[in-house]
């Protein structure tokens, strides 16, 4: 992917460099291929091949004894994949992923901004602190949330001791606990790209805006925010895409009314033992997520660079 701009850049500087031997770009391209080789092998082995396997399985059928039959490939599973019953679960997935993304950016942006502008010598330490939760398994941290949120858990005990409530407030197994757990889990993924784009922003541009009598708020809205939009988009993608397929958090922190589409797929695979159908639904979800993301990205990018 990096080859094209690289070549353009090397040729672009104009007439003065026209004398460059014509073989140079080709050599560069080969060098680029060499560097990208480990990545390509990795992606082929652990992404492309499994993806093709899922695609092939999704075209098969389940025979009467629950075995995958690939002798006749057809699209039958895809025709059956979209069912009106699944819509509420898909809406739940979208809702949780959307809320998680918005919250992660709203909470993460000020943190990233503060680290970048006021972190001083402690920037690295502060960034390590952001990543500190990764030192503990996500599963254990999610169980910790269960202990905090459950009816006789930490939070309800405090509320009851303070006399703020007599009966425990149902916090666990609700929309609230799912969004809380997911936002908690994905926040570092939002902070890091936000930090990079804020830190890269030339502070002189903000100063120039202030010199031109922009208020602090106006300078932020018209200079800082648009220029850090790539970071916001990256943060949104890094949060939304994994969040929409998140299975563990809604399963552990959710309840009877919080079923997500990932759970539907899991049921088809495990208790339903119908891998072809589950693969079709999973593949379709991936295509929908990818398509939606690309569309959103394109419109966002146009907006960003038009302003």
């Amino acid at each position, binding site marked *: 992917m990096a080859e094209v701009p690289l070549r353009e850049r090397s040729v672009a500087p104009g007439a003065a460099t026209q004398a460059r031997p014509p073989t140079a770009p080709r050599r560069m391209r080969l060098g680029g291929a060499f560097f990208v080789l480990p990545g390509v092998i990795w992606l082929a082995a652990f992404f492309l091949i499994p993806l093709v396997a899922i695609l092939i399985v999704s075209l098969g059928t*389940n*025979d*009467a*004894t*629950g*075995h*995958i*039959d*690939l*002798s006749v490939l057809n699209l039958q599973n895809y025709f059956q994949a979209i*069912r009106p*019953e*699944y*819509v*509420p*679960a*898909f809406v739940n997935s979208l809702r949780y992923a959307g809320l998680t993304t918005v919250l992660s950016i709203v909470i993460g942006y000020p943190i990233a901004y503060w680290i970048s502008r006021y972190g001083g010598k402690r920037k690295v330490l502060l960034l390590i602190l952001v990543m500190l939760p990764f030192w503990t398994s996500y599963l254990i941290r999610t169980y910790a949330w*269960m*202990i905090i949120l*459950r*009816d*006789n*858990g930490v939070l*309800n005990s405090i509320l009851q001791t303070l006399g703020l409530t007599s009966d*425990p407030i*149902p916090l*666990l*197994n609700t929309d609230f606990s799912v969004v809380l757990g997911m936002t908690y889990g994905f926040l570092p993924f939002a902070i890091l790209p936000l930090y990079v784009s804020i830190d890269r922003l030339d502070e002189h541009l903000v100063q120039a805006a202030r010199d031109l009598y922009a208020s602090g708020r106006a300078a932020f809205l018209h200079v800082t925010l648009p220029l850090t939009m790539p970071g916001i988009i990256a943060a949104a993608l890094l949060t939304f895409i994994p969040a929409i397929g998140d299975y563990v958090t809604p399963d552990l922190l*959710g*309840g*009877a*009314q919080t*079923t997500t*589409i990932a*759970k*539907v797929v899991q*049921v*088809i695979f*495990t*208790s*339903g*033992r*119908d*891998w072809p159908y589950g693969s079709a639904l999973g593949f379709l979800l991936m295509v929908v997520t990818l398509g939606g993301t690309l569309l959103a990205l394109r419109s966002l990018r146009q907006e960003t660079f038009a302003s």
Partner: protein
Amino acid sequence: MTREHDGSSVDLERQLVQVMAENRLTRRQLLERMGALGIATALAPIVAACAQAGLTSPSPSASALGVVPTTNPTAAPSATAGASASAPASAAPAATPPTAEKDLIVYNWDSYIGENTVAEFEDKYGIKVKYVRFTDAVTQMASLRKDGKGGGYDVSYPASTEIPGLVRDGVIQPLHIEWIPNIVNLGTDWQNPDYDQNNLHSVPNYWWTTGFTWDPAKIKDDLTSWASLWNADYSGHIGMLDDVQECFAAASFHLGLPINSTADSDLDQALASLEQQKPLLRKYTDDDIGDMTSGQLWISHAWSGDWVQMTYDNPDIKYAIPSEGAIRGSDTMVVTSGAQHPIAANLWIDFNLDARISAANSNYTGYLGPNAAAMTTIDPRLLADPNINPAAAVYSKLTELIQLEGADLDKYTQRWNALRA
């Protein structure tokens, strides 16, 4: 996905074991003899496997069906029964079994046998036991099926509902009843279960019920009916097991419908009832123990074994086998088809059927087994508990779930997903 199974290698394994048993061969002697017979013998299963792989279509199912010529699970055992009848065991039923094997790999739930069972077995037979644990049945089945012949374990403990599938797919091998004289200890209603006729491939291990538990601190009433799980007074604090067949069974008991029905009309009625119940639920739980002891749930659909564990945290928690009837679950001991230590595996099963050992297992885990001979040595407190040892009238209303397959399974899965989403 590697559910292919090579029947001929199982056959060969069984024949080898028989040869060893008849001639009191050690493994080393056997290997030497095999060397003398020539590499052809050793290669036979591999050649057979290759030939089979070459012949069959890309469908794994085709090869699985090709091995066992019929899908009727009872037909295959009858053939193998004939084979084992030729063994001299029938002449001397309680002959000292051969103990050439020095190791045994047992794959079981954690804390699922008596505290001293492994040590006593090791002392008696001089066989070293490697006890490997799993935490959920999905992991267990994935491990046993990953190579189609038991994943390297010798003995495991699958749920009874899994037996027909495991037999059909060649994951487990027929038992050697001649090495399991203690099988006579089984109660009469356990000697010929529907899932495995005449216990040719499995021996029942423990049984339990699926009823419901409640916390008397939150719910004062003495509950006896499935209707309690539909009681709006407990709204927001009711839990159902995250298990499709158990939930449909609960709804069927509640409505008086046949259990294990695959008729659309029955299933639609059960689904409607579950849909009606869903707004009252806190969650479909896969941790009924944690949810009952940490306050979210006041009442929960639960397995009796889980209730026993709840009482370790909160001794007041109650359990009922509902008056409308309930599900009886059971699990089994089996020998995998790829077992490296098949004799030791059969000896392990026999050892666990011993009246004293079986009682010790029950006393430690709180589960009753199907062992009639053990009943006299089981802790009287366990036997006095009507939830663990129900009266005959209650026991007679217990029903086992069936293993659903194909279109019948799809009927349940589709409705379950419609309910959950």
